[in-house]
Each structure stands twice: as structure tokens, then as C-alpha cells.
């Protein structure tokens, strides 16, 4: 298959880039390793209270519906780049695409397949539609090991196992939109994640809300107080992040406002260092937020199980005195860490910026090799809307690059 651009990653950046390129009449093809498009955004909930909070999560639906009207734009899920070759300014890639899937119309979600599957996480429920999906990345059958356990046990015949196929793709340019890795909060054991009951991360809460599973997690009547802890894995050189993750203040304040609108009795506390601007009416938002919730400028030193099994936060309070406050739920606002793009070993070396992401230090989309570009959170921490902005930026650069190579300016 011959195309102009190969987009690596089907998250919000890859999808918006595909859309912008199509409007510039540039042919592209997109590969995504998961069985669904959307990346992290597909797990996020709409945070509108009575009005839109401008989180941008619905942009995913917007781009997916726009792209569905475009012909000749392959969006390959369950795919990864297996081999790579470069000759005369052309990139030849071999894409390995898994063909196994769950037929959602037949599946009645009995859960038998999930029980028998030998691989953890090969079958999973997507947060955005609560349907079952098969990850060809993890399924051993898709990787060539003979295993049909799920297909044999399924009473509905909803498991459709196929051999994976290889697709040869030749492009003039590659855009790496491989996204980020959320900070693993268990790397900070003192904050109690996975040790202390009642401690969650922002992504977990977001996807619980998205899949309407929030209320069962904690009985509404028991849920009276929530604390958000900012900068977990951000602005923290000791844990390897000498930077601000840019999104977490907005995520926490918006989640807090959403929860407050659903459960008006809820008491919300936010532990923070500095609240970053996340929208244009920031002053007004904060004036309102200060009325609705408590802000404490202190970073907790420890989160542990207190009396009655509730988690409690230990922090340096006023007058430099150690304090501890119990909450019903504690949410760690986790930061953005560099992604782990799944690229072949001989893929050209790309620049690494001072934060450890791909690309240069100034939000540029050049990746350090002619014809290869980077955009979105693969390049550095970014909000959803900034990802889209950078995708437009990348579309502009890629178009110019293609125009020049066609004219023969580069060889």
C-alpha cells in the first residue's frame, strides 16, 4: 500500500492529525496497537456539570464521527509496526495486524472467556462503551501460539479468531503520535496506592465515571469526603520528573466540580503546590472553586489506613505542625510520563528532549530525522486541546515536507 503519511498511534492526536491531513488532501494511514481507537481519551468522562467544563474529552467522538465520512483512510487497529526500512527518502514498513475480535452483537458478556483466558488483560471492557474487546497485542493466539480456549468456551460463538496478517506500507513521512504513559503511583509507596484501601488515581476515577461504575465503588451514603493530591509524579525530580505535567490541575478541579455537582453534600479538599491555569476564565473558576472546596497548599508526606479503615493523609499544616486528616476517598492526581512507542529496533533514532519525551525542547514537531515528525503527548505533557493544536501544527509541517520532496528539494 502506498500512502503519503503513516500515523503511529490512534489517540486524539493521531486521529486529529489524520483529519487535518485529509483536509489538506494528503493520504494517510493510521496504525493503533489497541483494539479500539481513542487511546487514553476513550477512558475519560465528560466533565460537564450544568455547562461544559472544556475538558475536551468529547473531541474524540467528534473526530471519530468526522473521520467516518472519509473514504480511503485506513485506520488499522490491533496493529504494530514489525519492520522498518528506509530507501531514497521512502519509508517501507511492515505492519502486523491482529484479526481476532469479539463480535459485540453476539456477545452477552457472560464472562466465561475472561475466566479461561491464560493471559491477563487480553480480554477487557472498554470504558467508553462497556463492551468486551480482545487485545491482539496480548492474545497469544494472535502472536502465533495455538490457543482457542475462549472461542471454544463461548456459548454464543462471539469470539472470532483469525490469523494475523502482514501489511506492507510505503510512505514518504511518518508521524509518531504514540502518546504518554501515566505515572505509576505505586512507585511512591508512601502515598499508599494499591496498599491503602480507598486510594485511587485520577485516571481510575475518570474511567469509573465514564463507564457509570462510580457509584458502586463506594456507597453514596458513605462517601462524604474526598481529597485530591496534586503533583503525584510531577514536579518531582527525585522520581524522575523535573517538569510539570500541565494537565493534572485541570483534571482534578474539573473532576471535583463534577463530583460536587452530582453529590452536593460531598466535602472536597485539594492538596497542591501551585494551581496551573487550565482555562481562560481561570480567576472566576477559582473564585467559585474556593467556595465549593478546600485548598491546602501542602504536599502529603504519607497516606495510610487510619481508624475505621479510612485512608488518612499526613501533611505539614499551618505553623509547620504535622497533621493528619481522614477521608473516605483519596485521589492521586498522577502525572504524564514519556510514552513507550512500539517501534522496530532499526527505526531511526529520534531526539529526546530534556523532559525525556521525543523531539526538541521547544514544542516543535520535528523528531530529528528527515520525514519523521512527532506530535501530542509523545512530544511532552499536553491537554487534549493542545494535542489537537499540535496535530494541526504537524499537519502543516508534513504538508510542507511532502510538497518539497515532491519538488525534489530533498534527496
Amino acid at each position, binding site marked *: 500500500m502506498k500512502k503519503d503519511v503513516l500515523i503511529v498511534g490512534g489517540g486524539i492526536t493521531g486521529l486529529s492529525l489524520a483529519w487535518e491531513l485529509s483536509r489538506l488532501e494528503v493520504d494517510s494511514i493510521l496504525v493503533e496497537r489497541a483494539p479500539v481507537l481513542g487511546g487514553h481519551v476513550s477512558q475519560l468522562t465528560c466533565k460537564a456539570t450544568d455547562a461544559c467544563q472544556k475538558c475536551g474529552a468529547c473531541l474524540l467522538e*467528534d473526530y471519530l464521527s468526522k473521520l467516518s465520512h472519509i473514504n480511503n483512510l485506513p485506520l488499522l487497529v490491533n496493529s504494530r509496526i514489525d519492520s522498518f526500512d528506509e530507501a531514497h527518502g521512502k519509508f517501507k514498513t511492515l505492519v502486523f495486524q491482529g484479526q481476532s475480535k469479539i463480535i459485540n452483537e453476539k456477545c452477552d458478556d457472560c464472562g466465561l472467556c475472561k475466566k479461561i483466558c491464560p493471559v491477563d488483560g487480553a480480554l477487557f471492557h472498554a470504558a467508553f462503551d462497556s463492551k468486551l474487546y480482545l487485545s491482539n497485542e496480548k492474545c497469544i493466539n494472535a502472536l502465533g501460539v495455538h490457543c482457542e480456549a475462549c472461542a471454544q468456551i463461548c456459548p454464543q460463538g462471539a469470539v472470532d479468531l483469525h490469523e494475523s496478517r502482514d501489511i506492507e506500507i510505503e510512505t514518504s513521512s511518518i508521524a509518531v503520535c504514540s502518546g504518554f504513559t501515566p505515572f505509576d503511583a505505586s512507585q511512591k509507596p508512601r502515598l499508599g496506592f494499591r496498599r491503602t484501601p480507598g486510594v485511587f488515581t485520577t485516571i481510575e476515577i475518570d474511567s469509573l465515571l465514564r463507564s457509570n461504575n462510580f457509584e458502586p465503588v463506594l456507597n453514596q451514603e458513605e462517601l462524604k469526603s474526598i481529597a485530591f493530591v496534586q503533583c503525584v509524579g510531577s514536579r518531582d525530580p527525585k522520581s524522575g520528573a*523535573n*517538569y*510539570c505535567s500541565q494537565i493534572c490541575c485541570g483534571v482534578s478541579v474539573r473532576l471535583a466540580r463534577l463530583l460536587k455537582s452530582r453529590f452536593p453534600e460531598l466535602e472536597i479538599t485539594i492538596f497542591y503546590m501551585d494551581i496551573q*491555569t487550565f482555562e481562560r476564565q481561570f480567576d472566576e473558576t477559582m473564585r467559585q472553586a474556593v467556595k465549593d472546596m478546600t485548598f491546602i497548599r501542602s504536599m502529603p508526606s504519607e497516606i495510610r489506613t487510619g481508624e475505621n479503615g479510612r485512608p488518612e493523609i499526613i501533611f505539614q499544616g499551618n505553623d509547620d505542625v504535622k497533621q493528619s486528616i481522614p477521608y473516605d476517598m483519596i485521589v492521586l492526581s498522577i502525572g504524564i510520563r514519556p510514552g513507550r512507542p512500539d517501534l522496530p529496533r532499526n527505526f531511526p533514532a529520534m531526539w529526546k528532549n530534556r*523532559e525525556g519525551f521525543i523531539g526538541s525542547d521547544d514544542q516543535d514537531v520535528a523528531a530529528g530525522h528527515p520525514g519523521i515528525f512527532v506530535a501530542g503527548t509523545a512530544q511532552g505533557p499536553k491537554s487534549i486541546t493542545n494535542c489537537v*493544536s499540535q496535530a494541526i501544527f504537524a499537519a502543516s509541517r508534513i504538508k510542507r515536507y511532502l510538497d518539497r520532496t515532491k519538488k525534489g528539494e530533498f534527496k
Partner: protein
Amino acid sequence: MSRRVTESVFLSGEYKSRERASNKALILGGDEYGIRIAELLTREGVPSTVLIGPDETPPKDSRVEIIQGSILSSSGFIGNFDVCIQESNDHYERKFGFIIAAQPAFRASKNRLFSLSDSENVWSLSAFRKHLDSGGRLPERKGPWLHIAFFFDLKGASEISQFEELLSILDRLEAFDQVQSYVFANNLKVSSEGLDAWYRDHRRRGVVFFKFDSDDPQISFRNKELVIEFVEPLLKEEMELTPDLIVLDEILGPSPSIRPILEMIPSWPSSAPYLQPESTRFNGVETQKAGVFAVGPARGVFDQRSLRADIEAARVSILQALPELSSLIVKETAFIDRNKCTFCLTCVRLCPHGAIGFDFRPEVDPMSCKSCGVCVVECPMSAIEIRPANAEMIEESKTAPLKLFVCSHSGLQAVSKINSNFLTDVEIIPLPCAGSISPNMMLKALQEGAKGIVVAGCFKGNCASIYGSTLADSRVAQMVQTFQSVRMDKVKIEFVYLAGNTPDRIVDAITRMKK
């Protein structure tokens, strides 16, 4: 920007010929960014003119046309903007195809907020930076050390770009001997690449940062000396500092010179003072009005690094619009029936996209029209219709007990996520925008035997037609009230705000109806 599914070739003599469409671009604002956009566009075959303010200094050598002056007024549509420019004592009109607002940020001093007047010991951040850049000296010191106090993000939020400016001033001050800097701040704005590490560096090298939650430090004069009184935030002890110099940050905003451009868009109050509504529907530099683009401060972005993305976005937007300018394919748009129109200009005043102008009679610009249908419903003479979509829509009427009117943005996306079994006795009627729901449509649905009607539109602040969903909400409310006043309580009509990823809001509404 949204594109309706059906695009048809529909030509009519009513359209003004597009032959005279101009492909020239007018760029407002002549700092390095304005010039860069003009150069990029000129290279793409879009002749560009840069208009710089009367008090700005024009760059010395540049390959693009530069006018020094200001805009008196502007009108028209993409491909056909008439801009009246005042240049020294002269004013004249020129035609442009595109307008890009890229003026540098407007800076308002915070002196008054701290009850300070301009004096040699009180500087603004930008002025102090310029002073140091041009090799300016530091003032006389009272003791062996020079104490400089910076105020940041107090009495009004500050921007990332100002924190970067502050850090670069701190860098420069390191060249001087025995200078001690203090930063009095509310929130440090570090959410851009490299800023947090840079700030940490300065803290390590001896700059003192005080962070306050609410109690602003007070500045006063005592014996002609500046005194800062404050409660030290960690120890909660009262302290005072007598600095040699105080540097205050400023309040940033868009340039007031975007006003004539704003006024071309009837929905401007919802985005003012900015040119772009703060809605995730407007990506990159696009605004409600086709052919008008907002770069940087004009859309509320001040970070220098993000500005580079805006420059490229302006280029992309124009490249994407160029083929449409010369294209003969006209998408479905609003049509005004000349025989019915009474020139009340409701449509001109109400079109969220500024797509209807007045040239002896109200006229719709087909390229600017997003066919949202807000004008169709609001026209008191029913003189406007969206062609040719409306005709198709009315014909396919079924007799379902529940009718669901959804906008083609959020609504349709949400419906596509709902299990079709749930929607068996629900008829789904897509509207271009919830704002095009009319009382007639609802009455017709009831006439056809509907027991309940749900109208779904985007959340406030997320509507692609700015106030389309709000208008729809109020129309539905009016309808409900009318039915109640005639005691027809059995009729169920409801409006639902939603987003593409909240299908459960429709499910909930339908469940309520079914009860």
C-alpha cells in the same frame, strides 16, 4: 468545523458570483509572529499585508507589504472582506479574502491594584525586562545589597509567559553582584516545558519565593521608602521587607484593536474580549466566522511556544479554505425568500457565524453558512429555509410514540453509542443544530401521534453554533409552559443537554418518558 453528510451541487442565480473572491490576507499585528505568518502565506501564493499599530515600530527589512495604521471598520465574508484602514491622516477601503488577528498582547499595569503610582522604584515586568535587555542599569542601592521584590499572580491571575519572563529576568540579574531577589506569588505558572526545572534552579541559587493563599502582601510608603508587609506563609509570622525596587507583573489580554473584527460576528459577546469562543469545538485558530482567524493573544494564548503552533495553524486553515473559495460546489445553506422577507434583520443580528450580511437586503454567504438553522426558526416571517435538506427530512415521518430530535454534533454521536434495541419505538430526527428546532416541528410530531418528545443539544459552552442549544432549551421550555397553561399535562416534552460521550443522558431521558 463540521461538515454535514449531504453535500449537494446546488447552484442558484441568487448567489453572488464568487469570481471576484480575493485570496489576499490581512494580518493584524506586526511583531515577529505577524511577519512570520505573512511570509509563510506569501510563499503559498497568498499575498499578505501586515497592519501594525500606530505606536509599534515597523521591522526594517521584510519581504511583505506593511501598513502602519488602524482598522476603522470591517465587513463582509471570507473572500470578500471590506476593511476600512486609517493610515496617518488618510483613510481608505481595501478588499481582503482572509483576516488574521495576531496582535501582541495588551498589558494592563497592576500599579493601581496595589495603590502604587509609577515611580522610579516601581517597574512593570515587561518594562524591567526591556530595561535590562537594552543594557540598563540597576538603581542606587541603600546598603551593600540590592533587594528586588517581584510580585507574581497576586491580584489577578498571571500567565505562563510572564513566569518565563520573570525567570529570564532572574537569569540576567545574576550578572550583577550582590543582588537579592524575592518573589511574592500566589500560584507559580510552571505548566510549560522546562519552566519547573528553571524555577527550581533559581530557588537553589538563592532567590526567595513566598507563596500566599489569600492574604496579599501589602505595599506602602514609609519615609519615602517602599515597605512590604506580609505574613510569612510557612511560619505565619508577620514580616516586613524594604526593597530597593518592586517589579509588578501585568494583566495580559487581547489587543483592544480586535474590536472591529469582533463586531462582524453577532455572537461576539459570548467570546469577548477574545475573538475565539472558549469551546473545544473551535480548534487551532478558527473562529465562529469563516475566513477570520485568531492567533495567540486574540484567542487567549500567551505562551510563546504555543504561538508557533498557532502560526502554522493559520497557514493550514487558509490552505484548507483556498480550494473552497474557487469551488463551484455549494453545500446546503440558508436561503432567504425575497418575497417573504420584510427586512427586519433578525437573521443578521442572530446568525452565530456572522454569515448573513446586509447589502440592500439580507444575504447569506454560502461559504460562511454552517447551515445550523438558527435563523430559519427565528425568522418571524418564515422566510428562510435550509436547502435542500429540509425537504428530505419532513418526508420520512414515522409514527413512533417517542420522537428524539438530536443535533448532528453531540446528539447523533451519543445516539450512535446507544444499543439499538433500546431505541426500537423511538424515532430519531437529526437536526443540523438543536437551535433549529421549531415549535412547528414539535407540534407536527405530536400531530403524528408522538406521546413524548426529547430534544437533545450540546452542553452550554460546547454548542458549535454558540447559543444554538440554549435557544432550543428556551423554546422547549416555552412549549412546555404553553401546554401547561391549556392543561394538556399529558404531553411530555423535555430538553437534554449532552455531549457525544454521554449517551446515558439520552437513555435517562427516554426512560423518564417511557414511565
